[in-house]
């Protein structure tokens, strides 16, 4: 929302006022409220995935492969650990930036810019998924990693890796489709007719969430 509703009081008093009010607890559109709740639920899904991964990593008796080694690339004769992942992370974080800008232009009802930036965000997301596909291929074909086993150590390494990055990748792919649809509607003037660009913001929430989850996967899976 570009302007805060006039009745909103700041701080704790504002919170109590909202919660003891009738009609609605938050001065936000339904779609946004629902997206927040959905993301909370999704947070629990990813938390379960990550805790399970940590659990099996600790319970397995085989040694855990060295992630810095496994995820290294050799570029021009140099062996650089985690190179691809670093680029992927950069791409995704950049896409969060373009998304934030899109939301900002959405506030101003700048149809063209909003759509352009959203398409850019979707393109960066697609780029991320592409690199992920490259990473998976390299792991499967070159290193012989399979979900049920790998030559480097504990079988759970591959299982967790494919499951968690796969599930996250599906979120990104879904997001790319979602963003493209919304961007297309922005461009076609659908939201101008509707009188509100809130859907852009809602899509933005989802996208930032997917990025944030990646940061955790990055930290817990690749860096640990």
């Amino acid at each position, binding site marked *: 929302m570009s302007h805060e509703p006039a009745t909103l009081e700041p701080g704790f008093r504002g919170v109590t006022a909202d919660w003891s009010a009738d009609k609605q607890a938050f001065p936000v559109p339904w779609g946004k409220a629902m997206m927040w709740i959905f993301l909370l*639920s999704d947070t629990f899904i990813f938390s*379960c995935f990550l805790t399970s991964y940590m659990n099996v990593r600790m319970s397995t008796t085989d040694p855990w492969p060295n992630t810095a080694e496994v995820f290294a690339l050799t570029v021009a004769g140099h062996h650089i650990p985690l190179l691809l992942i670093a680029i992927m992370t950069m791409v995704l974080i950049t896409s969060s930036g373009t998304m934030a800008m899109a939301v900002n232009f959405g506030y101003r009802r700048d149809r063209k810019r909003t759509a352009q930036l959203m398409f850019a965000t979707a393109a960066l997301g697609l780029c991320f998924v592409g690199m992920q596909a490259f990473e998976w291929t390299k792991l499967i074909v070159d290193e012989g990693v399979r979900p049920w086993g790998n030559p480097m150590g504990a079988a759970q390494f591959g299982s967790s890796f494919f*499951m968690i990055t796969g599930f996250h990748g599906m979120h990104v792919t879904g997001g790319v489709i979602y963003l493209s649809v919304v961007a297309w509607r922005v461009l076609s003037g659908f939201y101008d007719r509707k009188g509100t660009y809130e859907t852009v913001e809602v899509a933005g929430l989802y996208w930032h969430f997917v990025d944030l989850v990646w940061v955790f996967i990055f930290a817990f899976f690749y860096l640990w």
Partner: protein
Amino acid sequence: MAFVAIADRDHEHALHDPQSFIRKYIWSQDHKVIAVQYALVAISIGLVALTMSVLMRLQLGFPDTFNIIAPQEYYQYITMHGMIMVIYLLTALFLGGFGNYLIPLMLGARDMVFPYLNMLSFWFYLLAVLVLVAGFFVPGGPTGAGWTLYPPQAVLPGTPGATWGIICMLASLAIFIVAFTMGGLNYVTTVLQARCRGMTFMRMPLSVWGIFMASILGLLAFPALFVSAIMMALDSLIGTSFFMPAVASMGEKTVHTGGSPLLFQHLFWFFGHPEVYIVALPAFGIVSDLLSTHARRNIFGYRMMVWAILAIGCLSFVVWAHHMYVSGMNPYFGFFFATTTLIIAVPTAIKVYNWVLTIWRGDVHLTVPMLFAIGFIFTFINGGLTGLFLGNVTVDVPLSGTYFVVAHFHMVMGVSPILVVFGAIYHWYPKITGRMFDEALGKFHFWMTFLGAYAIFLPMHYMGILGVPRRYYGYSDAIQFIPPSVHEANEWISISAMIVAATQLVFLYNLIHSYFKGPVADPNPWRATTLEWQTPQTPPKHGNWGKDLPEVHRWAYDYSVPGAPEDFIPQNVPHSDKTPVGREHGVPT
């Protein structure tokens, strides 16, 4: 531009009636139709589970006589019976059924906030049920892993349905969770954002509070089941080892190595314990409203009741491992989880006291819904007390795995919520169908079910204390510690179970017959205060409220207010000389 709450908008949101039969009753986005759809599917699949329990009882009561169930099939029966009852009947009926029906009506909304998503929720639920039923017909039959689906046995050959059956079960659960999420997001957002004018949180009927909190629990607990279903499916299908340790099966080493079966138990119960409250909290809320309405008394300690619902909801996430005292987890965990379990008993006990105090010296009308509500208090206290036994590690260790556990959970999450379901169906039947049910048949149904439930489950406490193990197909005389009295008890239980099951046919007859032939119901036959009874039409039309949304002026419990013209003041009646302020938040009159 600030966002405008629905109650402050013009009639842009007044919905137009769909005309064709399909849009109206099948592919419908109306929360009331979706509610009935949910309820009908849930009751149908529940009848399957009921039939299975009768067949199991035939086996247990009269071994070697009927031979309908083969020994290895018995596991499949308990598994499907338990899972259907807990998830596909009770969860779906309380949230998809009553949640859908009551939330918009009780809050003065026209519908859920996203009706299309709500409709999809039902169709996904139906799909989940179909996949579950498909499990009966795949090679090897449905899974026999127990409703807890513990690995390693759930996916090892030797357990019935370890190849196809378990996959059907996991797929069905995953689809169910997707369906629930679509519905649950709607329920929560509607409660938060789409109440009518004057409807503050602290004026919401407790039914809505219970369903609201249960939906939140569902959104946060089902993820754990979802994740474990994915991991178990991977273990089973492509040979990963999340849950599977290195084991030998059928004399051969399996492909698995190094997984953690205990991890599954933690994930399962992180879902499983809140699940108990997903079923119990709506029952708590609804029973509060039934008691208050039919005793013509305001609910005792409304605020306390709300806080108790919230406290139970939060605490239910930190008690899960009381199901795992014998799992081999770190014994210090047992200490922690026993403590939290006893703490959660406090708000629960408060609720029970408040229910009793609500009807104490009330003008109790022993209507059919009221009978069921009072019956609930009895069975719930019973189940709650045995829960205190099982919550303590040292007492639980000898009792776990016996019929004491079966008696406990049937009392607390089987019989008690089912009684509320019956009471609620009778209570809202006149509003949903516009017809009145047959009172005499209803009372017959109550007494047979209530007494029958005790006839079935009370002896199981005794059997459990003797150490009779659960999930057994039969108890031959070779098991020496089982005295003959247990066999007699088993016969008695089985006969009672059959009578109770047959009584449910009377209930179904009553519902179906009254729908066509029952007398036309009064719009507010119980003289209740809540909004759903104040709709312009009965049954309410699409959009619920005609042209204008209702406006709420008081809480939901203004019964027997001194000086009022009648013994109830509906929530949408303004304060005036004729209608006193009432007792909202203990304001004396």
